[in-house]
């Protein structure tokens, strides 16, 4: 029963759809039913920007099994321009070039293959600008 779990995440994984609180402006990614900041239940749907800055990072050298072929790989927390934060892979970049504050853009990539059927999960990874 993994198909519904994968397709219901498509608006976030493929289109970066987030909820922006109509009352206080907080951006929630993924969208939420109630704003954690002001408790409003009114949101508008927005798409997160595809550019941002690295706030922190690491190199994963002991990966989960579905990422075995890719290790070592870099991951970081990125603050997107205009709001919204994500924890994502940093690719197409030498590890020693990665710095806190580095500008990145998001690119649509294959993330992993899940379960025995190997259903491919797509999403975004970031690359240096």
């Amino acid at each position, binding site marked *: 029963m993994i198909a519904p779990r994968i397709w219901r995440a498509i608006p976030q*994984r493929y289109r970066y759809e987030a909820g922006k609180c109509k009352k206080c402006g907080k951006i929630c990614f993924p969208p939420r039913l109630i704003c*954690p900041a002001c408790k409003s239940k009114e949101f508008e749907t927005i798409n997160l920007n595809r550019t941002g800055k690295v706030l922190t990072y*690491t190199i*994963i*050298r002991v990966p989960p099994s579905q990422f075995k072929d890719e290790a070592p790989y870099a991951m970081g927390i990125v603050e997107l321009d205009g709001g919204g934060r*994500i924890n994502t892979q940093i690719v197409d970049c030498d590890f020693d070039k990665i710095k*806190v504050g580095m500008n990145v853009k998001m690119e649509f990539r294959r993330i992993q293959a899940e379960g025995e059927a190997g259903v491919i999960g797509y999403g975004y990874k970031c690359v240096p600008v």
Partner: protein
Amino acid sequence: MRDVAIIGVGMQKWGELWKKSLRDIFVESALLAIEDAGADRIDSMYVGCMTSGLFVGQEHIGSLLADYLGVASIPATRIETACASGGAAFRLGFMEVASGMSDIVLVGGVEKMTDVGGDEATYALGTAADQEYEGFNGVTFPGLYAMIARRHMHEFGTTPEQLAQVAVKNHENGSKNPMAQFPMRITVEQVLNSVMVADPLHILDCSPITDGAAAAILCPVEMAKKISQKPLVKIIGSGQATDTIALHDREDLAYLKSTVRAAEMAYKMAVKTPENIDLAEVHDCFTIAEICITEALDFVEKGKGGPFVESGATSIGGKIPVNTSGGLKSKGHPVGATGVAQVIEIVHQLRGEAGNRQVKDAKIGLIQNMGGSGGSAVVHILEGE
């Protein structure tokens, strides 16, 4: 609310206990705690356990463990808040006795982690993070704490040597603890030269995979004075708090707000300040965690946790000894059992039973147990006679 005492504690040496099952390691510790307490009955029990379902394929362990302890018919509930499960179970046991609902409550913790291989253990532990927005992209637990470490280094100049110093201190303490899984002393050079797991964290910055259990018996103070022959240890403060489950949703990536909040609750209930605390057991799942926790508990100002451990302030004989048991790092980290074993160390210290790792004149001890990357935190303060 009634005053509550801890009258019995029990655990056996932790490690890779291949010959023993989850139920056996739990019952061994529980029987030791009952014997230590001198109790002739148990009215109710709580068991902290993160994921027996993923580690041994067994849920419903409240019933299983009450059955194998020979107390079936009493209420028995398993509690889960990831790696803070033991601390949360302890808080519920405290509340049940304090409220008057039950008199003698057993609080246990257990995790049997070596019945699965390394990949499955990594997956099981990873479920404590946000699976859809952290795990999906490939992050691991060492990876999340590595990101906290990188941010702490960036903001405050914390060094890999300071991180390593946490491991060195805790292994030094663990070398004096017969229960510890890895009781060997290590050096800063050994930590820095060990295999990198998630930069800047080496394998010797990480707590291990462990099988283990721990148990404690709680009852009202008035009853404790009649039953127990041991020095009285009271629970004087308790706090629990949550934070966003995903690390990236936190405004401040290098600050453990759930621990700050849980500690505020516990200090307030105990009417104590950080200056009153003689020693602490804290959740050093990774070396950076202990540095951030000493800041969150207000033992040292924010950003100064690195120099604090380097100065020896948190060593035995220092201003406030931290993790005299060896911590998760050296003693081991069977996730659901950890919070209860932390209680056991503080009880031994406050009773004056800690042998060659005894903190002189220890009267008030603090326990901090944490789940995930800080999504849950539990803090307790205990007072000896």
